[in-house]
């Protein structure tokens, strides 16, 4: 555990991002027209610099920073890298997107937008490395409040304002409830250490611990968008500008999973197999939440007509898949979680970026507007189809090893003596795959089998968007066949600082 001064070195990622925020804001004040490229370019450069700083200050052993408030370990580093990559892709996509930076105010807003993006990434990094109840609250609030602002960023759209309002009301209540839960945990644990609080809650008598956990889950569940704390998700994803919805679908969610993992399982030295995972009531409760989330997300997505809402429900369902990791075999849980999130980054962003690119060219957001896109816009249609098939978890795309890793982790727990429940969980998970294909195939069907306007013109994407689509789609295809880079990175990142 390092003291304040010594922690500044390993804190480089956040420091570079913080400096970048000020630089971007300052440049925004000074620069003139054409500044959206400058501002967002600076954002990308800052993110790249922060990544370099992160890799440069990496050390073999896990350390606690600032007296135990944060951790610097391989687990947190993975999520920071994830957030940075997502930030870069979203920033680049936003340059050419009229939804978020329209031609009238876009240049003026670009600096604020870039600064907000950097701050969200920084907050997500903090969430992933928080090991104290205070820093957990701080980072969750940081990400949440910035998300509220970003959701309402498109000033001319009333839907965006509505999304922001719904988000802030829901999020305020959720985080407030979570804080109350944290206060109960402090009483149970006697310390503000996150892992200790989690262990205290899961091992306490059911009435007390269960209440505290339920309250904390309100906040965590809100961040992860799991049932029953998901109701904000479709409205916010639909109303927010699409690049920002893309950001929401990966960055806060991944950081939320990191935080939840530290909370529930960070205490045990579970990675050497000694810890048996969560005790039964908590494990059963999480399994129930996971099943409800998966099933509800998939069933609700079947009825959607708006593509962004469909993707929102799809991300709810994927969060349900990921929750299963928490009840899985401890040794396999972290690599499965990280592999899934790494692949999810690419395939989900590919889907969202395809929608960003198409909306920019004037295609509407409903499935009817997507009819016939296979002919009019072959490249984005193909990339979107690949992304959706990968999200469904079909080989040979990357979504399959991701799903395989999670389901295998669950069955491993069952095979190691967990009993039949885990096989039933795995069965529910794979049946949900079939249900999910119903709506993913529907989008592909509409694009390729649908007639569309007979005289519609061929759509030509902005070159930047084509590049971004390729950059996200190619790993979706390649990782399905060549998983070694990601799987070895995930295995190496299964290192958590156990707390004070």
């Amino acid at each position, binding site marked *: 555990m390092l003291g304040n001064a010594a922690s500044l070195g390993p804190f480089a990622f956040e420091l570079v991002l913080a400096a970048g925020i000020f630089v971007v804001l300052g440049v925004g004040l000074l620069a003139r027209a054409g500044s959206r490229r400058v501002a967002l370019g600076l954002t990308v450069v800052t993110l790249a610099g922060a990544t370099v700083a992160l890799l440069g200050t990496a050390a073999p052993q896990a350390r606690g920073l600032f007296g135990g408030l944060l951790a610097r370990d391989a687990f947190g580093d993975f999520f920071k890298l994830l957030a940075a990559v997502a930030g870069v892709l979203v920033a680049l996509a936003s340059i050419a997107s009229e939804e978020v930076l329209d031609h009238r105010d876009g240049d003026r807003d670009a600096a604020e937008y870039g600064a907000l993006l950097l701050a969200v990434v920084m907050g997500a990094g903090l969430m992933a490395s928080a090991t104290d109840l205070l820093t957990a609250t701080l980072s969750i609030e940081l990400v949440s409040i910035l998300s509220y602002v970003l959701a309402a960023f498109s000033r001319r759209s009333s839907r965006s304002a509505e999304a922001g309002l719904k988000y802030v009301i829901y999020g305020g209540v959720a985080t407030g409830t979570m804080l109350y839960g944290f206060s109960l945990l402090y009483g149970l644990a006697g310390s503000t250490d996150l892992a200790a609080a989690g262990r205290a809650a899961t091992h306490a008598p059911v009435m007390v611990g269960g209440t505290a956990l339920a309250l904390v889950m309100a906040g965590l569940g809100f961040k992860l968008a799991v049932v029953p704390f998901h109701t904000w998700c479709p409205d916010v994803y639909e109303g927010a500008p699409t690049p920002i919805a893309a950001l929401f679908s990966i960055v806060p969610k991944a950081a939320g999973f990191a935080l939840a993992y530290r909370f529930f399982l960070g205490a045990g030295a579970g990675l050497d197999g000694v810890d048996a995972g969560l005790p039964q009531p908590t494990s059963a409760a999480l399994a129930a939440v996971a099943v409800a989330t998966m099933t509800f997300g998939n069933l609700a997505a079947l009825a959607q007509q708006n593509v962004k809402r469909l993707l929102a429900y799809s991300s709810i369902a994927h969060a349900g898949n990921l929750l299963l990791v928490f009840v899985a075999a401890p040794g396999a849980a972290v690599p499965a979680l990280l592999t899934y999130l790494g692949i999810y980054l690419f395939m989900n962003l590919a889907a969202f970026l395809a929608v960003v690119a198409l909306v920019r060219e004037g295609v509407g957001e409903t499935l009817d507007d997507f009819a016939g896109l296979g002919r009019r816009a072959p490249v984005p249609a193909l990339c979107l189809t690949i992304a959706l098939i990968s999200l469904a978890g079909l080989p040979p795309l990357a979504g399959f090893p991701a799903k*395989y890793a999670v389901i295998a982790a669950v069955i491993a727990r069952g095979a190691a003596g967990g009993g039949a429940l885990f096989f039933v969980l795995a069965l529910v998970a794979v049946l949900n795959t079939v249900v999910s294909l119903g709506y993913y195939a529907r989008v592909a069907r509409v694009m390729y089998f649908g007639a569309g306007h007979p005289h519609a013109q061929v759509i030509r994407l902005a070159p930047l968007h084509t590049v971004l689509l390729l950059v996200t789609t190619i790993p979706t295809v390649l990782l399905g066949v060549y998983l070694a*880079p990601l799987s070895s990175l995930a295995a190496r990142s299964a290192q958590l600082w156990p707390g004070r």
Partner: protein
Amino acid sequence: MRNAKSPMSWSCWSSVSSWSSRVPRATLRWSKRAVVVAVAVVALGMAPARAAEPGADPVPIAVSPGALTFDQPNQARQLTIHNRAGAPVTVRAARLVSMGDPDFSVDLVANRLIAADGTLSLKAAYTPRVAARRQSFAAIELEVQPPGQTATQMVTVALRGGEELDLLSWLIFAPLLGLPLLWLWPRGREEGLRWLALAVTAVPLALAAKLLYEFDPGFTRVQGNFGYQFVQHLVWIRAFNVEYHVGVDGLSIGLVALTALISMIAVVASWSIPTTRNLRGYFAMLLLLETGMLGVFVALDLFLFYVFWELVLVPMFFLIGLWGGPRREYAALKFFLYTLLGSVLILLAVIALYYASAPTTLVDGSAAAHTLDIPRLVYIDDFSKHPALLGLKFAHLIWVLLFVGFAIKVPVVPLHTWLPDAHVEAPTAVSVILASILLKMGTYGMLRIAWAILPEATRWAATAVAVLGAISVVYGAFCALGQTDLKRLVAYSSISHLGYCLLGMAALTPIAMSGAVYQMISHGVVSAMLFLLVGVLYDRTHERGLDAFGGVATVMPRYAIMFALAFLASLGLPGLSGFIGELMALLGSFGKFRVSTIVAALGLVLGAAYNLAAIRRVQLGALPERWRGVLTGHDLTAREWVSLVPLAVLTVALGLYPSPLLDAARVGVADLLTRMGLPSTGLGGGL
């Protein structure tokens, strides 16, 4: 603009440059940069991969090399064991481990002490004794006792000798390599796409011919390599202990050859699809489909099998949905969802088998806690002793999952409702592939995975399978009798024919199972012919109803001959291939399942009824006047002859001279039955 008339301008390059000149330069520049970026991202990702792998339990010794490869016979190589621990380490034993008679010899040691930081050298030699076995795989197991402990640890060194045969990989991936050629083909010259696809599908066919020629029908498990030939075995995804393991044996060689042949015939059958209907996409899907099918039949690792199994779903969805008939979207979605349901059940079973398997080593010598390797699961693991789960024995539960998953593909009544719609709405070539090959994937999967890995569960469920087979035969036949659409009739006849397969597979006697394998191949050939013939009529008249025709033989005599040949083969006329398979399946199962066999034999009568009725209603009688102009003088064209004649020749040849195929099938089946502890020779079946 680029100048297309450079001195070295092959038409391909000039067309590439003309294509690229039509794409805006900005996009081209950005696309190239994107590809560079993506490659860089992946390459950067490989850097951490090459860094230290997460360590397993540290064993105090290091062995170099981790795997020994011999490419020449009578070669000897040195194996060095370094003692990395600070104290002396004892090597308790060095054993040679292989499946079958090994071609290797190793210095066998016992209780040798290695000093701290010392080394011990062992010599391994490769002296092939069995000429037929062109490759040998074995391993040296070193039992090491670390200092100060009584328990020993195992370190394995993989041995590989003989030829590096990658024929199967070329076979599987040749169609995929043709995909970029399709994409690069110049716009505006779409007619050439058909010839390109034909050339690309000719490659696996040629390789399959070579495979057939070099295949040794007498090679069994006793001779090594678990009985597989042309084995290629590499580590693929270390994180999941997945290997790239492919090989053929008597069960799969016929199916591989059939797949290659039918794929090429399907391309010939696709000639009539107009160039305005996105031929590029059509052939791309067809080639992807071919890779998936070929991969399924040669994969020997469960993960690899599953990847190829699922690979066929997406191309079929688009092929049926984009180039199909009036209700194509409904049929495509139904097919997709129904077969995916089966596939995910198989996935569950695969993962469960993985976690129930014993620790072993991967092919490069590294240790694995569990395995997905089919030969190892078949021969080394025994799942019948596993604890019970959900009220059933573990092996039984997994068997049921696997069976349901494969049964949806076969399809077995009552899981068959996707088949008629898919067949009817698919274009002719896709129907041919669906009936010929995809359905066989189900029965092949049953044999290769469910029967072989879980023999005791198979015996437990044999009666149920036999009953389902008999039901499929009769139900399919009755449904076929009632059809007015010719294509739907053939679809239901497929269900009926594969019921015989199922019955034969359930009987677990040599004759019945050889008959089942034979029936798979025979039905593949015959049903391909049937769908092609229906397509011939449909191309001319756009009509498939049995009531709409009559007397076609009067204006298209040659077509009538082929038609009669195919439908008679379908009903199992002696002298044609259908007879052998059905006869053997029924003969072999009579002893075990008297009632089911009798019921299935009744299906023969029904088969005669609907097949002969089809011949009568289409070919005989009076020709409706509206077809006279369309059909007269439009007998089979050269292209249609080319697609039908090989199949007709095969039908007759397999019917009159079944020995080659039957011998290969018998050997494959014999290994399977020996593994199941059942008699693998003799008549069996209580005859």
